[in-house]
C-alpha cells in the first residue's frame, strides 16, 4: 500500500464518521416525526424520504457507490427497473380488480 493510498483512506474514514453522525440524527428525526400524527399519506412520504436519504448515504459512502465502476452501475440500473415494477404490482392488482369488477 503506497503512502498516498493510506492518506486517501484516512480521508475516507473521516467521511465514514460524518455519515455515522448524520445517520444517527436522521434516525432520531424519523422517530420524532412519527409522533406528530400527520395525515397518513404525508407520514408515509416523510418516512420514506428520510429512509431513502439514509439508504443513499449508506450506499454511496459505506458501499463505495459514489466512485464505482460502470459495470456495477449497470447491474444496479437493471435492479432499480425491476424493483420499480415490483412496487407497481400492488397498484396494478387494484386496477385489475376494479376493471374486472
Amino acid at each position, binding site marked *: *500500500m503506497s503512502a498516498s493510498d493510506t492518506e486517501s483512506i484516512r480521508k475516507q474514514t473521516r467521511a465514514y464518521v460524518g455519515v455515522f453522525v448524520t445517520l444517527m440524527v436522521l434516525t432520531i428525526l424519523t422517530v420524532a416525526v412519527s409522533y406528530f400524527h400527520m395525515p397518513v399519506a404525508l407520514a408515509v412520504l416523510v*418516512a*420514506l424520504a428520510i429512509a431513502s436519504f439514509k439508504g443513499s448515504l*449508506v450506499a454511496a459512502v*459505506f458501499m463505495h457507490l459514489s466512485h464505482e465502476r460502470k459495470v456495477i452501475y449497470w447491474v444496479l440500473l437493471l435492479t432499480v427497473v425491476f424493483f420499480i415494477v415490483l412496487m407497481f404490482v400492488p397498484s396494478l392488482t387494484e386496477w385489475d380488480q376494479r376493471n374486472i369488477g
Partner: protein
Amino acid sequence: MMEIPYTVEARPDTGVYNAKLGIWLFLASEVMLFGALFSSYVLLRTGAAPGTWHHGREFLNVPLATLNTIILIGSSVTMVMSWASLKMNDFKKFRLYMGLTFLAGVGFLIVKGFEYGHKFEAGLFPKSNTFLAIYFTLTGLHGLHVIGGMIVNGYFWGPGARMWKTQPERFANRIEVAGLYWHFVDLVWIFLFPTLYLL
C-alpha cells in the same frame, strides 16, 4: 494448482475483481427478494377492508427498535472501518473493528429476541393478524440475514484472517465484499424500521 482468477486485480472487461461483481449480482437478487415481500406488505395493507388493519404501533416496541437501528448503523461503521484498517496496514485495528461488528450483530439479535419473546408471551403470533404475519416474515428473514453475515464476519475475524499473512490484498477484498453484504442488511433495516414500526 490452478489459481482462482481475478481475486485481486481487476478483470479487464468488467474493471472490477470478480468477487465484487459477484456480490453485487447477489445483492441485486436480494433486492428482488425483499422487494417482493415489501410489495406484498403494501398490497395487503392497501387492500385491507377499512378499519381492519392492525398498525405496528399497537404491538411493537419503538424504543427497542430505535436502539436496534442505532446498533446496526453503528455496526456498518465498524465494518467499513475494519476494511479501511486493512487498507492502512493495521491488522490489530481490523480485528478490533471486526470484533465490534460481530458483537453488534449479537446485540441486535438479543434485542430482537426480547421483542419476539414479548410478543409470544402476549399471545401475538404470525397467525394473529395480517400485520403480524408480514412483520414476522420480514423481520425474521432480515434476522436470518444478520445471522448469515455474522457467520461470515466471525470466520474472517477468526480462522479466515490467516489469509492476511499470505495474500493481504485478497483478504482486504474479501472484507470489502463481506462489508457490501453487511451494509445491505443495514440498508434493508433502514426501510423496515419506519415502515413496520412507525407508520
